[in-house]
């Protein structure tokens, strides 16, 4: 009987050992495609990256699918946007993952918002009557190149902690990315320079960092409050305000219905522009730098049309 138990124990150990992947790549899971792109930039071939939300879906409303639980259960590192962007779907994935490494506070958990510039932090009393406000600030902070740089830096440091032997490799890749990003920033700044202080409207509050970086003036939103669908009263007020201030452009995320935005644009003689809020939000926006290439080029071209500059 004893030998039987030993045999069983050895067999189970063999199964457990055999089920582990032989590859040493750090398994990285990110909640969004933007974080996935930055993790790939820094991690290169020393990481295997899985991004949960697609760039063309609303990152507030992602289904916590069991297939995501599987991905998170295998992760060595989980990188999240934080600031309650994923509050509706990430907690059950983490608690069901059975993965101690990536629990909040664990060695394999990285909140990318800890070292970036956050805008729109509410002050005073916050209530749900204000819509779906994020108490710790606007979570769409990745849409600012310098925040991308800061996120990449945090990823570099975390990967170096998890895989110290590759520290120099990650540092070199960060340096390379940083150089390319700095060059690209000059390009983007030059492209947007003629449109400084141009007045625009966005559908949701997804763009404060982006618009501030490029000096655009957001005068209103199609949503009356964050996460609240457009109402007729607010739409009429917005049309009046756009006419008063001469705003002609409405920027919309790919996952929102265009009907209301188009109707407003028709009333003010303006245009609706669908920009990619995330990597993969448009086919051309296939990585973090290309995301800005796509958005900046499209925005500059459209602003040229509507402003005549």
């Amino acid at each position, binding site marked *: 009987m004893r030998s039987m138990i030993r045999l069983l124990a050895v067999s189970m150990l063999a199964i*457990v050992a055999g089920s582990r992947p032989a590859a040493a790549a750090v398994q990285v899971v990110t909640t969004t495609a933007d974080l996935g792109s930055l993790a790939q930039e820094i991690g290169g071939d020393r990481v295997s990256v899985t991004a949960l939300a*697609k760039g*063309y*879906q*609303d990152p507030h*409303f*992602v*289904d*916590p*699918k*069991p*297939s995501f*639980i*599987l991905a998170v*259960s295998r992760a060595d590192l989980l990188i999240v946007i*934080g*600031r*309650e962007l994923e*509050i*509706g*779907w990430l*907690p*059950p994935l*983490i*608690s*069901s993952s*059975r*993965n*101690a490494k990536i*629990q*909040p*506070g*664990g060695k394999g958990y990285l*909140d990318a*918002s*800890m*070292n970036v*510039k*956050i*805008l729109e*932090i509410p*002050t005073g009393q916050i209530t*749900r009557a204000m819509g*779906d406000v994020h*108490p*710790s*600030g606007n979570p769409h902070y990745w849409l600012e190149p*310098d925040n991308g*740089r*800061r996120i990449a*830096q945090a990823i570099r440091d975390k990967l170096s902690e998890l895989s110290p032997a590759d520290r120099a490799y990650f540092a070199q890749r960060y340096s390379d990315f*940083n150089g390319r990003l*700095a060059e690209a*920033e000059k390009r983007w700044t030059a492209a947007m320079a003629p449109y400084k202080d141009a007045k625009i409207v966005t559908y949701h509050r997804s763009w404060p960092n982006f618009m501030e970086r490029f000096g655009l003036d957001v005068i209103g939103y199609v949503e009356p409050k964050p*996460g*609240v669908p457009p109402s007729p009263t607010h739409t009429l007020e917005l049309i009046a305000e756009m006419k008063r201030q001469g705003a002609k452009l409405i920027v919309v995320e*790919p*996952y*929102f*219905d265009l009907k209301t935005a188009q109707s407003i644009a028709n009333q003010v003689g303006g245009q609706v522009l669908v920009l990619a809020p995330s990597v993969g939000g448009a086919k051309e926006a296939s990585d973090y730098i290309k995301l800005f290439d796509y958005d900046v080029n499209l925005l500059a071209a459209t602003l040229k049309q509507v402003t005549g500059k």
Partner: protein
Amino acid sequence: MGLSGIRTVAIACAVVLVSAPLFAQQSSDVEALRAEVAQLRQAIDALEAKLAALQGGAAVAPAPAPSEPAVSAQSAAPVGASKVFNPDTSVLANFVGVAGKNHVSERPSLQLDEVELAFQADVDPYARADFFLSAGPEGLEIEEGYITFTALPQHFLLKAGKMRAQFGKVNPTHTHLMPTVDRPLVTDNLVGGDEGLSDSGFSLSKLIANPILYVEATGEMFSGHSNVFHSDRRSQLNYVGRLRAYRDITEGSNIDFGTSVAFGPTEVGPDMKKRLFGVDATFRYRPLRRAIYRRFQARTELVWSRQDLPAATRQNAFGLYGLGEYQFARRWYFGGRYDRSERALDAAIRDTGGSLFLTFWPSEFSQLRGQYRRTNYGEGLAANELLFQASFAIGAHAAHAF
């Protein structure tokens, strides 16, 4: 500027403000002084805002150098000192109205059916705790209260406490998260109704790694004190097992299968056991680009019950429901449900029914629902009812149901 520096400047500004009238008496240019006071007020406002932001951990970091951004302590996630270790707290209410006649299942025309208090937080690096206290017309009770050990090896997850058993899809679901006002007939007849199979015990589940499917196996052991099972002795326990398999079909569609078993003692008599066997299947479709506007879900659940009766006889009963729900606008859902179920102790009595329901979803925190329900009871009685439900929540943002 440090906190003490800001305070010093604020006090200095206040002193200037207080002494301003004295200077005004000595100066003929009152307007200039007023302007200066206004400027100082603005300066104090700005300093106060900055102080408040610092105390709340505001995260407006200084402009960094492009090569190597400096790590700023101001970027830390904001943490209010008063709630650092407080659990996420929310209050959920379920208000139900019924019109029409039903001689078998009477319920008040209007009733605050349930107020649920939820407290959820990490216990320590190894576990989290969830408490759901339910207050209703029958008093306050612990609907669920359990600890979940999240850091076990080999993809195990262990829960201990009182919880709703993982039998099928309806039993683990809280009432306010159901797609309908009520629960299906098969739940009422065979699986314990609203409270259902909910008991104190342990739940151990494991992900079974494989390249094709998400497979989760769950084994549970309960004390045998629920609406379904009843134990007179400590040695008589109730056991539940579930095997769930899930697979994405496309990025926007998936299929979910489950089989469940439960067995344990009942109050029919000493050593009179009951066995439940269930099968469920769910198909979901949600196009990712239009995820906030369109969604479809179809679900069926079949339950077989085998109840021991005196004189070495048994009663076998069967029930099922089929449900479809379609989101046709950002805030609107429409659906229907078919019900059929025999009674657990007398399978010759078979109830059937059907429902149509419409849900309006003003936000993630409230919903209004209307439901038409027709029930044909096995005794020959029929009931046509209109149900109304308003459910709403305040407090912490809960995870979305899946």
